[in-house]
């Protein structure tokens, strides 16, 4: 019996349990799944990327979750997605064709220190756990720490703020590890970051309120993805640039990836729209993951069918 299939994807788990589940998926599907250590967090926890690959020298697609630690449904959704990708290869035509043409890199817990802290000490923690001498406040908002409009509107210079952008771009080792990975790979064609909550599907830009060069295409793909997502449970998503859907926010990951040439850069804000917020009940994890998969699939299909 495969161990990864017995794991309860419909519950919230500690970091140790999530990491054990990653190992189980890897062991169960070792011909296509491996684990790549891309760095360590500020407190020394490993940053594990799950790599899905069926051949050498393929272009890559990146998916991450949990950069904001309190957004628990995102880490859970990422893990469910990892199992889905692994288990459906060779069974589902879409997953098979995707993995026959692309490597997928999935980082389910981008901010493991923060995630561990939400379990032990403060459920509402969002930032990293880095400490700086001379500051009485801990952590940096890792989604204001990317080198895209760094330090601009929608980010705070106050180290005590939840949207503190940090002393310099990529000051956070977690952010630098991902950025180094993207730079080092040099052939990533899609970058999807998973957040919660608000039910939004966004694309660049956030650090400025102008449309990206590929606005029409990204908007069309985004709307198709939102429609597919909605088809399962009727969950409605709003689609648009970060600036138009929420507010101007600088130093975000998908702005950086778009500016370094990854055209298909998207960010999801998963359920809900404000009944529970970050405290989404566990019984909504599986429906959220299942509907998100349909949206993700539309984006991934478009990437597969539109090489650049």
């Amino acid at each position: 019996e495969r161990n990864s299939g017995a794991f309860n994807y419909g519950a919230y788990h500690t970091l140790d349990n999530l990491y054990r589940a990653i190992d189980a998926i890897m062991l169960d599907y070792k011909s296509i799944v491996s684990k790549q250590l891309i760095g360590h967090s500020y407190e020394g926890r490993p940053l594990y990327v799950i790599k899905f690959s069926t051949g050498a020298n393929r272009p890559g697609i990146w998916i991450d979750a949990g950069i904001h630690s309190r957004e628990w449904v995102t880490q859970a959704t990422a893990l469910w997605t990892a199992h889905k990708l692994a288990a459906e290869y060779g069974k589902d035509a879409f997953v098979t064709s995707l993995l026959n043409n692309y490597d997928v890199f999935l980082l389910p817990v981008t901010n493991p220190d923060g995630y561990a802290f939400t379990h032990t000490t403060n459920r509402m923690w969002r930032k990293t756990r880095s400490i700086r001498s001379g500051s009485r406040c801990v952590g940096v908002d890792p989604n204001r720490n990317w080198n895209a409009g760094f330090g601009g509107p929608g980010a705070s210079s106050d180290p005590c703020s939840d949207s503190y952008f940090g002393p310099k771009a990529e000051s956070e080792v977690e952010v630098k590890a991902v950025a180094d990975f993207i730079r080092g790979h040099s052939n990533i064609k899609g970058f999807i970051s998973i957040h919660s909550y608000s039910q939004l599907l966004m694309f660049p830009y956030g650090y400025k309120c102008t449309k990206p060069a590929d606005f029409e295409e990204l908007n069309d793909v985004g709307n198709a993805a939102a429609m597919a997502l909605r088809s399962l449970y009727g969950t409605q998503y709003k689609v648009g640039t970060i600036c138009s859907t929420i507010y101007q926010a600088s130093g975000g990951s998908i702005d950086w990836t778009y500016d370094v040439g990854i055209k298909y850069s998207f960010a999801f804000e998963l359920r809900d729209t404000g009944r529970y917020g970050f405290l989404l009940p566990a019984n909504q994890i599986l429906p959220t993951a299942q509907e998100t998969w349909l949206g993700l699939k539309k984006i991934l299909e478009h990437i597969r069918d539109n090489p650049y």
Partner: protein
Amino acid sequence: EKTFIGEQVLRIKASNGDQIVQLQDLQSLAHLQLDFWTNPSNPEIPVDVRVPFESLQSVKIYLESNKIDYSIMIEDLQEVINAEKQEMISSERK
């Protein structure tokens, strides 16, 4: 472990740009220790804010005196967190 006893999450609906500015002013009052789950930026987007028990009265008075609409999104945050913990424990047992 930090507890959130008596804390509420308010859903605030600004009706115009002036009220957004008033909410941004509220956001800058560090002593209230507010945790904005969504930021005040646009009257079309509701603002969700976690309010410590000690600040609840001041925040509600501020909103009411400025005629800013709000409702209570989460009545008792600790209760929801406790339920989440309980759920984790029982699923772990299973």
